[in-house]
């Protein structure tokens, strides 16, 4: 078994994928972060407090993971779903009754969507109460607010797709609100409905927004959000700008000492 494992891990293919051995020492633990695309979102080392659950509750990460789950289950749903007013409802019925794991994956998609909205709201609240929006993270907070909006729109645009009573009338309420926009209410309503009432045009518009436009917008915003977290000095830690020089020097000296 161990010989087989050694054979695999010393193969060219394996080595072309994983540039360094399983990280067990200081150097390889640094290299695994620097050499991996996903892990490159992180710095090599973080202050101990950044790993404390009670500081972040991991909420941004959970929201991101919900997005991954939603993408995976969403692709599965797209295999069966037909976005026409005649077929939409019946493809969901078929999905739930005839497709293996169909009901499970639809349920998972639904609950993960709610979880993502909750996680994003909770993440924003955590960032606010820990003062993590302060400069230089100010613009990243703005991107975060945009991500909250996109998350809600993603969830809401998916609401219409099953074409059941819940879907139809939730969208009717939403259209009533959008149609009340001052001065351009009629135009907003027309743009969202693709006509004068909720119908085939509406369904195809919301479907396109839900499966292409909004996910792409979300990915773009997330990429910027994560990149800026790195650029703005990683996870927020207390700053001592108002402290006297002596304290600052002591903190810095101790930090250096501990880092060695």
């Amino acid at each position: 078994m161990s010989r087989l494992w050694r054979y695999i891990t010393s193969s060219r293919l394996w080595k072309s994928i994983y540039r360094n051995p399983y990280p067990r020492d200081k150097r390889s633990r640094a290299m695994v972060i620097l050499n991996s695309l996903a892990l490159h979102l992180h710095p090599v080392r973080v202050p101990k407090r950044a790993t404390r659950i009670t500081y972040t509750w991991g909420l941004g990460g959970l929201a991101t993971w919900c997005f991954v789950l939603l993408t995976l289950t969403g692709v599965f749903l797209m295999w069966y779903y037909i976005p026409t007013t005649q077929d939409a409802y019946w493809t969901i019925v078929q999905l739930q009754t005839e497709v293996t794991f169909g009901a499970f994956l639809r349920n998972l998609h639904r609950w993960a969507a709610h979880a993502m909205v909750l996680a994003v709201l909770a993440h924003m609240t955590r960032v606010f109460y820990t003062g993590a929006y302060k400069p230089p993270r100010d613009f990243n907070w703005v991107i975060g607010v945009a991500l909250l909006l996109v998350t809600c729109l993603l969830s809401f645009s998916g609401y219409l797709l099953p074409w059941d009573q819940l879907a139809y009338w939730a969208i009717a309420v939403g259209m009533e609100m959008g149609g009340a926009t001052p001065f351009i209410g009629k135009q907003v309503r027309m743009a969202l409905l693709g006509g004068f009432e909720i119908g085939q045009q509406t369904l195809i518009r919301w479907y396109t927004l839900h499966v292409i436009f909004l996910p792409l917008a979300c990915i773009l915003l997330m990429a910027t959000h994560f990149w800026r977290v790195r650029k703005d000095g990683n996870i927020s830690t207390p700053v001592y700008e108002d402290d006297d020089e002596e304290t600052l020097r002591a903190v810095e000296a101790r930090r250096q000492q501990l880092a060695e």
Partner: protein
Amino acid sequence: MATEVQRPAGEGKDDLLRTVDEKDLKPVHVWPNLVSIELIGALTITLLLSLMAIFVAAPFYRMADPELTPNPSKAPWYFLGLQELLLHMHPALAGVVVPTAVLVLLGAIPYIDRSKKGTGIWFYSKKGVPIAVFSAIYTTIWNVGLILVDEYLPAGGANGIAPWLKMHGFPDAFAEIFVPIAFMTFIPFSLWTIVKRRWQADMRECMIAMYSFFLASFIVLTIIGTAFRGEGMALSWPWDIPYPPHGKE
């Protein structure tokens, strides 16, 4: 363990929570210290959501029927706070102006509170938690009070503040636009003033009051919109609300 860099008690310029914990300064490797936590987090949420997906079916009612309006007819939960507002003011205000203003003001927070002081510290100072709790209670009382008055204030045939004002000869725009705006500005403004006077709050502490106002309003309105609005969107007890709503099953 607190280190020598901790400012001796009583010597601080203010009461910022400034204990520097030695453990906090020490850098640790992301692999395995952070990635292991992330993995456990991802697995936990996947497990919980999977269990929920196994045991709780996503709602799915009869096919959409434009002729059959369900009663009550509701948006998804995160918009029910806005739908609740819709009952109390002009639809343009509740559906468009307020959410836009909320997003813009949320985005503006770091440009109003510019100081770096308090970055990375839960609730900033010793006053942070009391201010947040007070703000939440203050907001909740206002919200619930206004909703009750708007539901039960008798005004001729109808109930509510706007019909009452109209009954007394005020124009529609005054009752449906001006008065709600006045309330929506007065509550945070008065809160800001109280927090400033009572706690000598600085900008960050005032911001904590404002965010707590937003959060408490969102939660209260969402709960009332979800669990306390029944047929005809009248206030009802959660157990009196038909589920699924008539016309949906």
